[in-house]
């Protein structure tokens, strides 16, 4: 039987599991305990991505497509999974997938292979050298283990000529880098892998992935110490945002952090930590007091060392593009912030972005609120709703009946809340937010109902339903309860999700903003690409023009798209924006269109001026923000535009046009 026939036969047997595996997006939510289920025992013990649920899905996909052949290590990977079901609970919350079905299929597939079908992978001299540094079990050249890193640091078309190494300390990383240099092998660190997972399907893939060499998986650097006296936390590169926040909260402190699964050190290195707390807590080097870094020569440095080159500055300009961090951050001393006793949250609904933007900038300039952001209805729907379909219906209702296209989302103390209430026509308060979270499935069923049709005839439907006479009808009608929302999950998970949604934090928007477990839903069975940047905010019309431009380009390329958010920075002097393109990462045509939109919008932003695009601040999170943001980027000339195109061609190859 030919290989194609064998694969076809397997694919038909495992169709459901293959579909699940393909929809996996490497959001990484299975690698930390955000629901109180405990961690995947296998991943916790063995560390390599291959032993985590996301890795099993990737391996299964690779085996079924013929990308990798079974090795003896596969038996260990399969047997390390006890089918305990933790992954189903975690993944279902975030992506509505059931990865355990993939684990079962992988086990069935492996059990049915003959003993002679498992390749033996010998140790070579490089692996031997790496094992001498980190210990026998923490380095591998096994193709199955390597293949689990595809899409999060390895391009899908790459040969699997890599080594994976999991050091425990900064000193081991230093030795690995020196070893790599002596053997002329490229290397790259890997943390959560989510950023690369979003970039890998696109045209940026080969530019950001490692082409060969040594992957340094940083998961084992798990130091986490809080110092309440100095309001700081010492955090190793293996620690996620969620894990740090959990420790900080025990001391009534908060760290400024990215999405729950993002590794703190990697996030500083890559994008400098973007969050709703940014106007107050800052960005880039504002977030830490010290970092420990291993440079490309393997030398260990601290940013506080007196005898090193200024670690906080960068060249600037539109051609200052960097596709790798300036070394490997192994440890960071993060600033922590006290949490006020009277913190509260309000959402202010808006039909038009112009009005929402005007309000958020006024709040930022007056330094009102600790957390400030304009969220689009798309983000609100995706975050609050447990499934794609409910999110879709929720968003439809927001747009069609409630005229709720944006919310100004403010967390602050009682005084802040009072100011917002005075400025707003109506607010959505904490109690109503809880109702919307637990009642989202029921609200979605009201789509096209008479109730909503009548409501839409109101002058301000949002005001009528959230702060007017219809509020009590909505509260009653939604029957918002943990039991109600749990019904949307598979029957065997409903008891579990009733308990999850009974926890106060699951409906507490302040907790959700701090721990950020909901953004993973943007990667629910499909990917998104975030076109992001910073724009000087003195001219708010320019921000609106920018959003229009981003929208028009996405329409041109027939993409599902919408503004994600706008958040003010530095007392509203500038604003951070994220505009998202959603796409099926398994569809090559969609991937091509996303890539074209990405490049065209980047170029257009450079032509507009006053905008610093993600391509220009990527991997600059270690620097002082003033050195990254100033001088304000001027609109590029035609000559500079030609140079930009040359640069992009140099990065991506001349064949890619937009």
């Amino acid at each position: 039987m030919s290989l194609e026939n064998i694969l076809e036969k397997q694919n038909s047997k495992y169709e459901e599991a293959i579909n699940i595996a393909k929809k996996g997006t490497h959001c990484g939510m299975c690698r930390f305990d955000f629901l109180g289920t405990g961690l995947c025992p296998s991943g916790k013990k063995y560390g390599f991505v291959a032993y985590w649920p996301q890795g099993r899905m990737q391996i299964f996909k690779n085996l079924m497509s013929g990308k990798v052949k079974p090795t003896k290590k596969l038996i260990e990977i399969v047997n390390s999974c006890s089918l305990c079901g933790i992954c189903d609970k975690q993944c279902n919350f975030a992506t509505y997938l059931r990865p355990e079905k993939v684990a079962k299929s992988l086990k069935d597939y492996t059990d049915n292979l003959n003993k002679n079908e498992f390749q033996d992978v010998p140790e070579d001299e490089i692996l031997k050298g790496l094992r001498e540094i980190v210990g026998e079990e923490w380095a591998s050249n096994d193709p199955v283990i390597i293949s689990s890193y595809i899409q999060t640091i390895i391009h899908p078309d790459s040969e699997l000529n890599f080594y994976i190494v999991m050091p425990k300390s900064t000193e081991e990383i230093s030795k690995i880098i020196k070893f790599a240099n002596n053997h002329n092998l490229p290397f790259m660190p890997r943390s959560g892998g989510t950023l690369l997972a979003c970039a890998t399907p696109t045209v940026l893939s080969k530019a950001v992935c490692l082409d060969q060499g040594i992957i340094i998986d940083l998961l084992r650097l798990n130091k986490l110490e809080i110092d309440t006296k100095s309001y700081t936390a010492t955090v190793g590169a293996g620690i996620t945002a969620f894990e740090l926040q959990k420790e900080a909260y025990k001391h009534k402190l908060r760290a400024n952090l990215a999405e729950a699964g993002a590794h703190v050190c990697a996030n500083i290195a890559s994008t400098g930590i973007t969050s709703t707390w940014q106007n107050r807590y800052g960005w880039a080097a504002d977030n830490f007091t010290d970092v420990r870094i291993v440079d490309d020569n393997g030398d260990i440095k601290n940013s506080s060392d007196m005898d090193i080159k200024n670690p906080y500055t960068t060249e600037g300009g539109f051609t200052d593009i960097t596709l790798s961090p300036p070394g490997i951050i192994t440890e960071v001393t993060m600033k922590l912030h006290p949490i006020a006793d009277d913190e509260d949250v309000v959402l202010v609904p808006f039909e038009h972005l112009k009005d929402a933007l005007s309000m958020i900038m006024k709040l930022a300039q007056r330094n009102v609120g600790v957390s400030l952001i304009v969220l689009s209805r798309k983000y609100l729907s995706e975050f609050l709703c447990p499934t794609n379909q409910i999110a879709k219906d929720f968003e439809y209702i927001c747009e069609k009946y409630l005229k709720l296209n944006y919310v100004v989302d403010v967390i602050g103390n009682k005084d802040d809340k009072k100011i917002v209430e005075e400025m707003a026509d109506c607010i959505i308060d904490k109690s109503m937010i809880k109702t919307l979270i637990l009642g989202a499935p029921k609200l979605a069923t009201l789509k096209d109902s008479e109730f909503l049709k009548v409501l839409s005839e109101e002058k301000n439907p949002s005001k009528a339903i959230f702060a007017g006479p219809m509020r009590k009808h909505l509260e009653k009608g939604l029957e918002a309860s943990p039991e109600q929302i749990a019904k949307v999950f598979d029957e065997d998970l409903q008891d579990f999700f009733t308990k999850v949604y009974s926890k106060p934090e699951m409906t507490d928007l302040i907790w959700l903003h701090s721990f950020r477990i909901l953004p993973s839903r943007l990667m629910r069975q499909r990917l998104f690409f975030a076109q992001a940047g910073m724009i000087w905010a003195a001219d708010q019309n320019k921000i609106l023009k920018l959003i229009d431009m981003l929208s028009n380009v996405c329409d041109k390329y027939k993409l599902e798209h919408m503004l994600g958010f706008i958040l003010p920075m530095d007392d509203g002097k500038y604003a951070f924006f994220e505009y998202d393109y959603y796409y099926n990462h398994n569809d090559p045509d969609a991937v091509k269109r996303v890539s074209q939109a990405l490049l065209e919008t980047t170029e257009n932003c450079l032509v507009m001026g006053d905008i610093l695009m993600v391509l220009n601040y990527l991997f600059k999170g270690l620097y002082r923000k003033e050195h990254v943001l100033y001088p304000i980027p001027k609109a590029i000339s035609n000559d500079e535009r030609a140079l930009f195109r040359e640069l992009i061609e140099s990065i991506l190859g001349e064949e890619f046009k937009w």
Partner: protein
Amino acid sequence: MVKFLSEEWIEIGKNYIVDKLDPIKDLKSITTSLLGVVEHIPPDDITMNFYLELEDGKLKDLIVNTGDTFEEKKAAYEIRGNYGTYKSILMGEMSLGIAVLKNRLKVKGSKLQALKLIKPLDGVIVALKEITDEFLD
């Protein structure tokens, strides 16, 4: 077989650039000089460098030395990287631009100015790719 950084490599490289590359079309009439430092050369882990000078797109000098400096002439730009990186570039596995942007090749001086040279230098890289077919492991 022409080995990277050998005497023969210099001679054939010079001839190739002079004979096959058009100073205007291929080398964009550039005037610049570049010191390429190659670190971790096997088997003894030595460092070598090559000095390349172009004037109005015409080759003025291509010199190979040991060590990481070239005292006789001061180059406008210095790029530094390990032997494996240069090998990847000359084997066509990685572009010069990507190597710079990924920090595999470190630029001394203005990165902006160096990146402006990438396109004209592509011509030289193509030439060196054509003639280099042996590397040390």
